[in-house]
C-alpha cells in the first residue's frame, strides 16, 4: 500500500471539461470516497489514476513516484469496475487466482492458494471456490470481482461503484464487510459513488465533487456538520437539508440569504409560536417517518418523532438551534 497524490489534474474530452484542476491525496491505508452525481467527473478521476486516461495537465504520484506517463500495468493499481467481468469458463478459484498467475509475477502455487483462500474467507465465498463463476448469484459474482482485486497487494485499490448492481440488503451487508476488510488489510482505497450512504458509512474521508471540481474534502462528520456551501450541505443527510429563506427566521448573521436546517437543528412543538407551520403529510418510511410541513408556502421536511402523534392539518411551532447560514452565492457564513 502507498500514498497516492493527484496534483492539479485537468482532463477535457473535446470541449467538455471532465476534471478541472483537481488535487487530492489519498494517505497510505486511507479509504477516500469521491461522492457526486452522474457526470461529475468521479469515474474520469479514477481512470486518470489507473492510467486508463492521460491528464491534459497535472500529475499523478504513487508512493512518491511520478507515474503520469506510465502505462496502467506499471502503476501497481487494482481496479474494481461497476460491472463485474468474470471469466465464465473458469471457477471462482481460477478467477481470483488469475491476476496472480500472470507470468511476470511468478507467484508460487502454494502462495496463490493461500492468498485466494484467505480473501475468499474475508468475502464469505470460501465454499464457492470450485463453482463456475457464472453459477453464482449477482452478489456472489460481485464478491468474486472484488476478491480478484484483493488477492493482489497493489499500491491502491480503485473502485468504481462496485456495490451499485447489488440489491439493497446485500449492499448494506457489503458496506460493512468492505469497510472491515479495508481496516484489517490496511488497504488504500479510492472509491467512487453517487450513494451518500456508502460514502458516509465506509470512507475515512469524503471528497464532494461537482462539475469536475473537488468542492470539499473531509471526514463524513466534517462534511455533514460543516459543509462549505449549500451544495455540499444538500449532498449528505436524509431527509435532505431544508434550505429556507433567511427572512423566515430572526437572528441570522448579516449577509445570510439561506438558512440550512437539518432535523437536528429543528425543534418542533404542537401549537403555534413565533414561527408556525402546518403539517401537510406524514410519510411513514418504516425506520423513519418524514414530517412534511408548510412554512408560509415553503416546504420543510424533517424526521418526525414517532411519539408526537401529529396529523395533517396540525399547526406546529418551529425553533432553530445552531442551523447553517449561507450567503447569496450559497457559501457558508460563520454563525
Amino acid at each position, binding site marked *: 500500500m502507498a500514498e497516492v497524490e493527484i496534483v492539479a489534474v485537468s482532463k477535457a474530452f473535446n470541449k467538455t471539461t471532465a476534471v478541472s484542476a483537481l488535487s487530492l491525496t489519498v494517505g497510505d491505508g486511507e479509504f477516500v470516497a469521491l461522492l457526486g452525481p*452522474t457526470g461529475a467527473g468521479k469515474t474520469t478521476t479514477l481512470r486518470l489514476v489507473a492510467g486508463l486516461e492521460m491528464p491534459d495537465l497535472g500529475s499523478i504520484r504513487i508512493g512518491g513516484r511520478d507515474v503520469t506517463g506510465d502505462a496502467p500495468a506499471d502503476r501497481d493499481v487494482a481496479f474494481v469496475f461497476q460491472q463485474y467481468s468474470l471469466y465464465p469458463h473458469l471457477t471462482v478459484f481460477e478467477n481470483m487466482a488469475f491476476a496472480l498467475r500472470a507470468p511476470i509475477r511468478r507467484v508460487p502455487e502454494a502462495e496463490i492458494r493461500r492468498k485466494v483462500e484467505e480473501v475468499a474467507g474475508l468475502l464469505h465465498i470460501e465454499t464457492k471456490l470450485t463453482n463456475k463463476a457464472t453459477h453464482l448469484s449477482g452478489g456472489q459474482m460481485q464478491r468474486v470481482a472484488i476478491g480478484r482485486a484483493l488477492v493482489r497487494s497493489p499500491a491502491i485499490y480503485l473502485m468504481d461503484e462496485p456495490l451499485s448492481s447489488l440489491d439493497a440488503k446485500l449492499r448494506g451487508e457489503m458496506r460493512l464487510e468492505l469497510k472491515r476488510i479495508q481496516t484489517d488489510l490496511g488497504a488504500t482505497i479510492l472509491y467512487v459513488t453517487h450513494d451518500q450512504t456508502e460514502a458516509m458509512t465506509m470512507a475515512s474521508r469524503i471528497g464532494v465533487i461537482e462539475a469536475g471540481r473537488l468542492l470539499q474534502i473531509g471526514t463524513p462528520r466534517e462534511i455533514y456538520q460543516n459543509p462549505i456551501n449549500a451544495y455540499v450541505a444538500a449532498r449528505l443527510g436524509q431527509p435532505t437539508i431544508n434550505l429556507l429563506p433567511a427572512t423566515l427566521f430572526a437572528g441570522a448573521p448579516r449577509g445570510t440569504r439561506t438558512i440550512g436546517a437539518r432535523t437536528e437543528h429543528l425543534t418542533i412543538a404542537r401549537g403555534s409560536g413565533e414561527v408556525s407551520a402546518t403539517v401537510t403529510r406524514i410519510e*411513514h418510511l418504516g425506520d423513519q417517518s418524514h414530517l412534511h410541513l408548510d412554512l408560509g408556502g415553503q416546504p420543510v421536511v424533517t424526521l418526525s418523532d414517532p411519539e408526537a402523534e401529529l396529523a395533517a392539518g396540525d399547526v406546529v411551532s418551529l425553533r432553530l438551534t445552531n442551523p447553517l447560514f449561507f450567503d447569496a452565492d450559497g457559501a457558508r457564513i460563520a454563525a
Partner: protein
Amino acid sequence: MAEIGVEALEKFFGTFHAVKAASFTVEDGQFLCLLGPSGCGKTTTLRMIAGLELPSAGTIRLGGEDVTMNRASARDIAFVFQLFALYPHMNVRRNIGFPLKCEGIAAKEIERRVVEAARILRISHLLDRPVSGLAGGDRQRVALGRAIVRKPKCFLMDEPLGALDTEMREAMIRELRALHDRLGATTVYVTHDQLEAMAMADVIAVMNNGVVEQVASPRDIYDRPASLFVADFIGSPPMNLLPFRGSLEAGAQAIRLGEREVAIPAAREALAESDLVLGVRPEHIRFTDRGMVRGEVYGSEYLGTTQIVTVTTRYGALKARSAASLSFHIGETVGLDFRPDTLSIFDQQSGRAIRTALHQGGAHG
C-alpha cells in the same frame, strides 16, 4: 378510473410456476406497489394485468368487467417501462402526442392534451426540444407524459426509476407520488426497491417465489410483517431475527430468551414448544448496561442524524439504530434492550407471524 381485481391468478412457464394463486384488489384511485426480489413473479403479474401475458388460471377485472381474455389494446391501460422508449427523431411534443395520433385524434385536441400533460409534469419549456439531449429525469418525464396524455383507466409501471441515480430517483419518487395525487389514477407499480414502495404506495403487495405474502399499508408491512420473508425484506437494515426455542400460552406477555425473560405484546394464540424467531427492528433496540442481550460491537456506520451499530451476540449479528452523538468502540461489550410493544414473533418452520396484541383489530398475521 377504475378498480383492478386480481383473483386466484396462476401462471406457468412450462413447468415453472411463476405466479401462485395471487389475489389482491387495487381500489379506484389507489397506488399499489408490487414489491419483491428479482424472479418473484411481480413483473409477470403486472404483465397479466396489462394483457401482455395470458394467465394459466384466475381472473382479472378492470372496473368490475372481466378482462382476463381481452387483448392489451382493449384494456384502456397505460404501461410505463423501465427503459425510456422514446422516439429519438421526434421532439418532446411529438413524442408525448404520438399515442393520440395513433388513435386518430384531431390535431387541436392532441395539442391541448399534450400541453396539459407537459404542464402537469413541469416540462412545458422542453416541448420543442429533441429528446436526444435530455437528462435522465426529463426523459422519464416525457415517457410519463406519453402515458398520462391518453387518460387511461389505470397506469401500470415496471420499475420506471430503475435506471436513474440515487438523487434523481429520490426526486422522481416525490414527483410520481405528487402526480398520482393530482391525477388520482389507479396505479400498479412494480419495484424491488422497498424505499420506493414505502415512500409511494397506499398499499404494498409483497411477493416471494410467486406467492403474495402480504397485502397491507406500508406502515403495517413495516410494523406488522406477516411472515419472516417480509420482515427480512423490508427495512434498511431489515428486522433483526433472533432464533429461539420455546412455547407460548394465549395471553403470555413474555418469552424466555436464554436465561432472560423478554416482554412481548400479549400472545393471541397458544403454541407447543417449537422453533420460534423473535423479530426486532433496529430502531427498537436500546443500549443499556443492564440489557438482556449482551454482545460485542462489530462496527458502526455513521449516517448523519443517526448511526447503525452492528453488535455480535449469541443470536447472530444484531443491528441497532442509535443517535449519531453516541460513541461506540469496536470490540466494546454492550447490553441491548428491546422495546416490548413492537416485537414480532414468527414460527420458524412456516415463517408465519404469531398473532399477538401487535395485530389488535388488524386482519394480518
